[in-house]
Every structure is written in C-alpha cells, then in structure tokens.
C-alpha cells in the first residue's frame, strides 16, 4: 500500500486538519466528535442541511459544506458510517431554529446512526428529518437486500437542496424536494482497480490485470458483475443500459412524521426514465481515474442520451464521490425539472463546488 499518509491511525484527523488549514475561509472543522460546519453560521430561519458518511469519498461530504450546499458534514472513519454523537453535535451547532434535514445515504450503518442521532436531537427540541438517498441501480431488489445504496445522486441533491434551503424552503418543502430528487436519480459505478483502506494490508477486493468490476459500490464492496476489460464505449453502454432501462423501483422508506411524532414507513416507487426526459448528467471519478478519461466517458453518455431522446440540460464531470484511490467511474442521471435546474444553478461556495461565488 502506497499512500501519502503517516500513521494510519491518524489519517482522518490529519486530513481534516489539512482541510481546515486549506479552507479555513469557508469551513470550521470540529474534533471529538468530528464534524465540519460552514464558516458563517446558518442564517436565522434557514433549514440546516446536514450529511455525513464514511470518509474516503472526498470531496463528499466535507467538501460540500458552505453557502449554498451543506451546513454541516459528519465524517466517519474511513468507509465506516459516522456515529450519532457527531450528527447530534452537528445538528445542535447548525440548527437556526428552522430545523435540520439529514441527507442519509442508504447504508445500514448510516441509516441507523442517523436515526439514533435524530432521536437524540429531537430530545433537545430540534426539528429533524432524515431523507434517504438510494439511487444505485446495481442493487436490483430491496426485498432481499439492504436496498439500493446511496451514491452519485447524493452530490446533486446536496447542491440542489442547498440552493433551495438558501432560498427559504422550510423543512417540509425541503424534505419533499429531497425525496423527489432521490426518486428522480439513478446511478451506476464500475472499477478498474480496487482500493486499500489505510492500515489494511490487502485491497478491498482482488481484481485481475485484465478485469473490471461493474456495479461497484463506493466502499470497495464488490459489484454485480466481474467482466474482462472492455473498451470505454462498451462499458458506458452497459452502465447506461442499466440506468436508462431500470424498471420502476419500489421499496419501503422510513421518515419522521411530525404529526404522529414517530417514525413511519411508506412504500415509494421510482419511475423509469422515458424519452423526452431532461436530465442532469454526472460522470464521476472513483478517485484514481483522471478527468481526461471522464471526458471520454461523458462523450459516450451524451451520445447515448441523444439516441434515446433524453436531453442533458446540465452536467458535472470530475471526482466528487470517490472511493479512495480506486480507478473507475460512476454515471448518474437525475431527471430534472425547472425547480431542480434553478437550484442547481444557484450560487454555492464550498471547497468542492463553486457556483457564482
């Protein structure tokens, strides 16, 4: 394992110190428990947007803290969901009275920890809603699995909901937007190489010199299919086929019911893409793939969309939700209406994404 790190036990802390050093104009990094808040306090009356998850996916989420995106992010250990005390402290730090929306990627650990944190924060009188992001079409069913993982759509949601929150959306409206975006987004990832978590001697998975893994998660979880190396166009065709032809997807999602003052579960169904849809297209590097290769991928994504009668109205190309140094990419399409595009275009000033600021 060759990485630019010191003692693996201190990696996370030192990287957060570096983030603070580099972006002290935009964010504050807190330790014990670890969470990152935007430099200027959340404006009074603005819903606070909080996310978090295992580290190793940088710039997500800490790099998306700042005006127009997140109010706070909670970095867990590498590839490990953060703990409730982090989220609880973050919620207390950024709640301006208008409540907190936790954007939670659908991993068993993230979901449970954020639930506990929400319960703790509610105990302090903070209004908290948790919205789940589950957009990874590589996971086919929700009955026999933990459900679809939260991947690329998360980044787009954090940008769009961030814009809406700045624009005055209340917690209910913002939660509804967040749910809608999640239902409109689909992603799929692939890896050319594996990655190694600091301190571990072996890669998260073994992969041959002529093999690729399709449907990979962002934690080095093996994907749905091992395949011989293919040309980029073929790979993109496979991924786009999975995304564009993904049928309606139904699962049970949990959220807080403020009237019943309890968690409630509801069946939610995402509708497939269809001709005429407008989308935001997001081509993401898993960390080790340079942006030049992403452009090659984007070219094919656009070509396929055009052929299928789907119009890309905005795009994002780069390393935004990564898996350490893994080589590979993910593709996300988010069906976008006027509301989404409006807040996608809204100003944002964070270490990782800057728009008009």
């Amino acid at each position: 394992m060759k990485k630019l790190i010191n003692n693996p036990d201190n990696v996370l802390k030192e990287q957060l110190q570096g983030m603070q050093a580099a972006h002290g104009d935009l964010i504050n990094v807190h330790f014990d428990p670890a969470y990152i808040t935007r430099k200027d306090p959340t404006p009074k009356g603005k819903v606070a947007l909080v996310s978090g998850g295992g580290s190793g996916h940088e710039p997500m989420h800490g790099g998306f803290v700042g005006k127009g995106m997140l109010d706070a992010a909670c970095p867990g250990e590498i590839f490990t969901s953060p703990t409730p005390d982090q989220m609880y402290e973050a919620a207390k730090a950024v709640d301006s009275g208008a409540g907190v929306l936790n954007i939670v990627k659908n991993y068993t650990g993230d979901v449970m920890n954020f639930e506990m944190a929400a319960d703790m924060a509610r105990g302090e009188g903070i209004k908290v809603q948790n919205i789940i992001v589950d957009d990874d079409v590589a996971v086919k069913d929700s009955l026999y699995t933990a459900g679809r993982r939260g991947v690329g759509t998360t980044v787009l949601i954090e940008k769009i909901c961030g814009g809406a929150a700045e624009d005055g959306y209340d917690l209910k409206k913002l939660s509804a937007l967040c749910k809608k975006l999640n239902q409109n987004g689909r992603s799929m990832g692939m890896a050319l190489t594996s990655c190694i978590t600091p301190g571990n001697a072996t890669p998260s998975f073994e992969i041959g010199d002529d093999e690729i893994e399709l449907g990979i998660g962002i934690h080095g979880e093996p994907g749905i299919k091992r395949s011989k190396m293919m040309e980029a166009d073929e790979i993109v065709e496979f991924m786009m086929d999975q995304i564009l032809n993904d049928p309606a997807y139904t699962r049970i999602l949990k959220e807080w019911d403020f009237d019943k003052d309890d968690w409630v579960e509801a069946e939610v169904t995402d509708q497939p893409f269809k001709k005429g849809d407008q989308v935001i297209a997001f081509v993401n590097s898993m960390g080790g793939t340079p942006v030049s290769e992403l452009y090659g991928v984007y070219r094919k994504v656009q070509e396929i969309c055009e052929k299928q009668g789907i119009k890309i109205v905005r795009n994002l190309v780069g390393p935004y939700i990564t898996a350490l140094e893994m080589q590979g990419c993910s593709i996300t399409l988010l069906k976008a209406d006027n509301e989404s595009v409006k807040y996608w275009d809204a100003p944002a000033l964070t270490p990782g994404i800057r728009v008009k600021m």
Partner: protein
Amino acid sequence: MIKKKHILDWLNKSAEVLEEKKSYLTKLDTAIGDADHGNNMNRGFKKVLEQLPTNEKKDIGAILKGVAMSLISTVGGASGPLYGTMFLQAGNSVSGKEELTAEDLKKMLQAGVDGIVMRGKAKIGDKTMIDALEPAVKAYSSAVSAGDELTTALQKAVDAAEKGVEDTIPLIARKGRASYLGERSKGHQDPGATSSYYLLKALRDSVQ
C-alpha cells in the same frame, strides 16, 4: 451468581479477543463487506475499557449502559448502533442490579438480542449477528429452564453461537452490506456473527 467483577472481566476479555481478532474480522468483512468490522469492534472496545473506570462503581445495568454509549460513539458502521442498542437494552433490563442470577442473565441476553432485532430488523438466516445470537440465547434459556448450571448453560450458548456462525457460511446475506453481493455472499462467514460469538465466549470465560 454473576458478580460485577465477572461483568468487568467480561468486558476486558471481550476487548482482548477483539484486539486479537481484529485482522481476522476485517478479513472476513473484506470478503463480503467493506473491510472494517475488526477495526470498528477494536476501536469500540478500546473506548469501552477507557471509559469503564467512570462507571465501574455503579450497578451492572449502569455499567452496560455505559458500554452502550462508548460503542455508539466510536464504532460507527452497522455494528455500532446494533451492539450499542444491544448493550443499552441489556443494561436497561438489569437496571440497579449489583449481581445477576442465571435468570437475570437470561432476561438480559434476550433484551439485548431484541434490541438488535428492533434496530436492524434481521431475521435468522439473514446472515447477520442474529444468526449467532438468537440460537445462543435460545440454548441458554432452555438450559436454564431445564435446570442446568450457569456455566453449563453458558457453554451451551457458546456452542450454539459457534454453530450459528458456521451456519452463516452457506447463507445468502439479506441484510447489511453483504446483501449487495446476493449469491456471491455464499461461502463466506459473517463477520458480525463471528464477533458476537467472541463476545459470548468472553462471557463464558469470565463466569467460569
């Protein structure tokens, strides 16, 4: 009778075995998860030992709730809230007690497992820690009901857990990260079931 010192010994022994098995558990989690379970558990029980002095003068219920808090705030991942809830409910079930009868322990173990099920919704056969814990608690309860000695009952629990761990190998995971693998999760032992087995073994070793 289980004295407080047995409980403290249990926690120490648990920390010890989890440190020892750290790489092994992470290796198991590399095959069907994200290669962190050993690190998570080791980090958690290090914190448990660190914070133990603050609570060790208190009753057993309070000590276990302290353990829960330590785990919840350091383990993370799926196992953090699950084991955290387990110790929390276990602690609640023996609130105020300075020592435990075999019957108390039965209630305590049951409460712990119920906590995990409540939080994680796993059923037996889902290839999770439940596959080790549920048979273990059942075996312990039957043994106690049948009038077995505490140590015999605990040994039966450990044996059941061990078998439960082995039984996870051919299973397809239905919960947690391993579930993404579907068929490909077959043939691998569940890391969480394995750590549960270590916790039970540490309990048996402390009480003997």
